[in-house]
């Protein structure tokens, strides 16, 4: 299998896994950097992630102009992806989602921090980007041009996750596996953290050292391979 076909196939699977696990619903998207050309990335045409197939994948330049769209409708928020790829050469996959458990953390002053080990990949710091700060309070909140995308990427900085106020989150990974796992377990962490907050009193979060060590585990073949087999089968993609 060529690297390109393999990347396209993993991208289709990532779409369906994230839909199956409830990270993506009708909206949201996941992309992968082109394996043969770091100045391009792959993304589905405008379609709900659950339904994405190989023939939906389009190649884009990092400025988000399409190369082979064939006139098909495209996601408006491509700049979330293109701008993060531009700013972060180490990022190989990006997910933008509206996970319902994450959104509360973008609209309150409650910080999103990892509280259990599998969520270590979320990272020690999760910044919150508010489109209003630079673009005013009359936007539709969508990130539809490169200027907005670059402003988000600036807040995203060297982190793995940034929340978008009143909107959702952007997640970057060094591989599509990491991107999927961090997207999923950041959502789970939000759920667990909200329950811990409900119990009241002081919460013990992971320490910076624990987060750093867990990020290594998140990227290890032992952890990734086990989870990937499980997630692929749950999403019904084992024969894809």
């Amino acid at each position, binding site marked *: 299998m060529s690297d390109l076909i393999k990347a396209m196939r993993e991208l289709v699977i990532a779409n369906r896994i994230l839909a199956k696990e409830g990270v993506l619903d009708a909206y949201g998207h996941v992309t992968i950097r082109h394996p043969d050309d770091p100045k391009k990335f792959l993304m589905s045409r405008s379609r709900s992630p659950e339904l994405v197939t190989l023939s939906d994948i389009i190649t884009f330049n990092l400025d988000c102009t399409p190369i082979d769209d064939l006139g098909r409708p495209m996601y408006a928020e491509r700049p979330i992806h293109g701008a993060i790829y531009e700013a972060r050469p180490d990022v190989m996959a990006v997910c933008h989602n509206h996970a319902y458990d994450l959104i509360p953390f973008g609209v309150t002053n409650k910080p999103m921090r990892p509280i259990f080990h599998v969520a270590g990949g979320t990272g020690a710091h999760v910044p919150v980007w508010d489109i209003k700060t630079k673009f005013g309070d009359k936007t539709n909140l969508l990130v539809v041009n490169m200027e907005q995308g670059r402003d988000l990427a600036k807040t995203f900085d060297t982190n793995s996750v940034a929340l978008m106020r009143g909107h959702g989150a952007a997640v970057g990974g060094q591989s599509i596996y990491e991107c999927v796992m961090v997207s999923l377990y950041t959502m789970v962490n939000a759920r*667990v953290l909200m329950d*811990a907050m409900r119990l009241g009193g002081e919460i013990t979060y992971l320490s910076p050292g624990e987060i750093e060590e867990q990020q290594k585990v998140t990227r290890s073949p032992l952890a990734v391979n086990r989870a990937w087999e499980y997630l692929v089968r749950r999403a019904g993609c084992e024969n894809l």
Partner: protein
Amino acid sequence: MSALIDAMRELVTANRILAHEGVLDAYGHITVRHPDDPERFLMSRSRSPQHVSLADIVTFKLDCTPIDDLGRPLYSERPIHGAIYQARPDVHSVVHNHSYDVIPFSVTKFALKPLAHVAAAIGHEIPVWDMATKFGDKTNLLVRQMEQGRDLAQKLGSGNVVLMRGHGCAVAGKSLRQAVMAALYLQVNARMVLSAVRMGAGTDIKYLSKGEVETWMAQTGGPNFYDRPWEYLTKRAGCDDL
């Protein structure tokens, strides 16, 4: 059929039940003590519990060295199991899980206690083990050495459940079925406590008394005690033809 094959089959079923009920996700594991040799235990190779089959079962010594791994990748957290079997001759099965409903109780001071009879097996008092206390705050929280496993087993004491801060829990049973039921109802009970808190109960919740827990547990020793739920859970997990 030999006792060993029976034990392996029950272990596969237990893996799939706990996955189906959401106690285990991509991660976590369940083991059983070897029926013919108490100095060994059975555990799957590294694989998500939902997919474990008979061919995946590996035999380990209690110090967690494998006997028949054939070079297959292994779970790194075997010492959770080996150390509990070493410390507790009465324990025949151990579950380690990251149940999302249980973890909140490991990172707060809110004590998790049984509030319904079916959860009595989790015990009246549940200790919380924090790896950082003895091993510092720069670990990856995984229990990968026997020294760490033994420290955890010490915290478990003579109980059935120990929570692991920022990680999950370990559940011990006198039989495999008891361990599965305790792990399952630990999760159900945690969910019910969270619901009571959401109702505004604060810490004013009526838990089972120590006497109620002891009386309930006294009846669980019979050989057929778990037959009814086991048939149900086995069918739900799609394992009735296994």
